[in-house]
């Protein structure tokens, strides 16, 4: 009956250039799977990693082209019957997701070869997951957000369960899946209720409806928006929906954890920011107090529980909960500054977490098992470069000056203060100080304790044997060269390629002697350079993010 009455159904025009980055990633994933299936795993892992990285570069180029297209006039365009919107915001996330894929491909390459995991599965799943995150950022319709959420989440469930040899991995995959499916179902019910209350699933139409209709009893709408918020908070690991995070982060293969932590935050916050800044903007008075409470709980829980962890992966899981609280600060501010600050924080955090988990991948050793803090004893003496990189990444997460982490925290707290959430700003800074304690503990363990004493417990026995008098000199020289090169290649698009060749080439000799894949080291170097260079010279990233913060 209703279907028959819906006459005049027009096939929508599909602008393929607008969805090119997503198409490239999905295409790359299919090519990888086909190559893997046709060659019966005779292709070396390096080929798959290169294909994945090349796909990421292609998506990055497509993203930059889109950025040029929408940024100049400042007028966004909608595509595929207004279900997607291509604006600065969505293209910025396209660019970020592509960068994550490139760095993550490099990091995962070393892991896959060390563990002898043949086949293209890791990269194919990662590419699909990233395409889902891009879709979430570009979605202009709740159904598309839901599709993006699932395209992102389902590969992440499998990535968590990818390591068949460790029971923890399967358990992590299952826990992530059950709780993820639970949150998706809640999210869908939220969409249904919002649809019932507003008559549309289109974000722009919902915003228009809410702007013109002032409802006195909008229980249905508030329930729908509440359920949607729950679904999002699950994905970005905010308290009280964070229960899965420590278990999944600890159990998943380490490079998958890094990728998951980065891409889930990117996709989740992209959609969360767009929905609550555009569609539900007029409900601000209703959701701001809720987010205030959620942000406080998230900040405090992440910082306090992080203190008592003995496992570095678990510690970083609580740290990621703490970071989610900081990003929520910008959303809670519900202002233009808050939007830019949250965006900036997501950009910064994605690189920090990728790099941190890359170092953990290296230290975890064959089998991916040594993740206790004890494994880091004397790391900076055995492997000065690796120790230096991890120290930079941890100090940046703690908010040390001259790093992007410091600026990220500064901008979100500033946004909170400008919207008069003084108490929230103070709580955030206090939890930042508490969280700094557990980051500094790892740095302290890495630097101050002699390497020789804990030799039997070391994960990288070959590294310890090679420690000679010449190493400190090399360590002092190399970081200086790195940071100088970092300023030169500071523009985000060029950074991965430039550093991969520059740092990778210089490190190859050392890396080979230590049994660490140069590709993983190159990935770590990129994230460290990003953190330092844009921390010292913040203008490019901040103006980029500020331009991207303009919603349609």
């Amino acid at each position, binding site marked *: 009956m*209703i*279907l028959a*009455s*819906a006459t005049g159904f027009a096939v929508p025009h599909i602008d393929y250039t607008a969805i090119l980055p997503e198409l490239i990633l999905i295409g790359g994933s299919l090519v990888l799977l086909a190559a893997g299936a046709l060659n019966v795993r005779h292709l070396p892992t390096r080929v798959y990693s290169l294909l994945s990285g090349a796909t990421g570069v292609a998506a990055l180029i497509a993203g930059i082209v889109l950025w040029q297209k929408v940024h100049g006039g400042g007028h966004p365009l909608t595509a595929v019957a207004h279900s997607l919107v291509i604006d600065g915001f969505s293209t910025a996330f396209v660019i970020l997701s592509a960068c994550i894929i490139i760095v993550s491909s490099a990091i995962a390459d070393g892991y896959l070869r060390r563990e002898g995991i043949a086949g293209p599965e890791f990269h194919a799943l990662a590419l699909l997951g990233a395409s889902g995150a891009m879709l979430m950022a570009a979605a202009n319709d709740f*159904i598309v957000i*839901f*599709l993006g959420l*699932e395209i992102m989440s*389902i590969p992440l*469930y*499998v990535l968590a*369960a990818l390591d*068949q040899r460790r*029971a923890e991995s*399967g*358990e992590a*995959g*299952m826990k992530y*899946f*059950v709780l993820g*499916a*639970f949150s*998706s*179902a*809640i999210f*869908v*019910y939220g*969409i*249904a*209720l919002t*649809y*019932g209350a507003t*008559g*549309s*699933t289109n974000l722009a139409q919902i915003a228009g409806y809410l702007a013109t209709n002032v409802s006195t009893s909008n229980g249905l709408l508030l329930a729908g928006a509440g359920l949607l918020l729950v679904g999002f908070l699950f994905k970005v690991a905010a308290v009280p929906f964070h229960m899965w995070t420590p278990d999944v982060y600890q159990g998943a293969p380490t490079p998958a954890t890094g990728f998951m932590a980065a891409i889930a935050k990117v996709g989740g916050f992209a959609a969360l920011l767009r929905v609550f800044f555009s569609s539900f903007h007029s409900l601000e008075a209703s959701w701001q107090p809720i987010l205030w409470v959620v942000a406080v709980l998230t900040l405090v829980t992440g910082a306090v529980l992080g203190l008592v962890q003995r496992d570095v992966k678990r510690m970083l899981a609580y740290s990621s909960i703490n970071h989610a609280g900081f990003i929520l600060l910008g959303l809670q501010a519900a202002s233009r500054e808050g939007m830019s600050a949250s965006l900036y924080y997501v950009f910064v955090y994605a690189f920090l977490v990728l790099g941190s988990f890359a170092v953990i991948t290296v230290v975890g050793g064959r089998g991916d098992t040594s993740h206790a803090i004890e494994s880091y004893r004397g790391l900076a003496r055995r492997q000065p470069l690796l120790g230096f990189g991890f120290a930079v990444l941890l100090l940046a997460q703690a908010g040390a000056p001259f790093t992007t982490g410091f600026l990220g925290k500064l901008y979100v707290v500033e946004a909170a203060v400008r919207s008069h959430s003084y108490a929230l700003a103070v709580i955030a800074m206090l939890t930042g100080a508490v969280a700094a304690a557990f980051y500094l503990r790892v740095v302290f363990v890495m630097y101050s304790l002699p390497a020789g004493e804990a030799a039997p417990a070391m994960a990288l026995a070959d590294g310890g044997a090679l420690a000679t008098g010449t190493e400190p000199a090399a360590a002092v020289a190399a970081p200086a060269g790195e940071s100088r090169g970092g300023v030169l290649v500071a523009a985000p698009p060029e950074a991965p390629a430039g550093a991969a060749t520059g740092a990778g080439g210089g490190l190859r000799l050392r890396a080979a002697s230590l049994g660490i894949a140069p590709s993983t080291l190159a990935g770590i170097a990129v994230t460290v350079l990003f953190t330092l260079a844009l921390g010292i010279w913040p203008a490019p990233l901040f103006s980029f993010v500020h331009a991207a913060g303009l919603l349609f």
Partner: protein
Amino acid sequence: MSVPADFYLTLSAVMFTIGAVGLLVRRNVLVMFMCVELMLNAANLAFITFARELNDVGGQIAVFFVLVVAAAEVVVGLGIIVAIFRRRVGATADDVHVLKG
């Protein structure tokens, strides 16, 4: 003649609640999957009810998307369970590959 929309919405809410509570209290993973399906179908029922009330085809289309995603989700979920189960059985399942080629 026709059933009021409130009845459908109440049924949908009840289904959703049963699913949510079931997922939280049951310990069998397969039953937990069924609870997720129940929650998704509760959302589908709500979509269709609202589509009828609003005389809008969008809600009906949404149901198809949700159905497809639910199917994909279960495929992956069952795959993960099978992977865990194979590991649990342990050496016997892992050792059968010696007879290949």
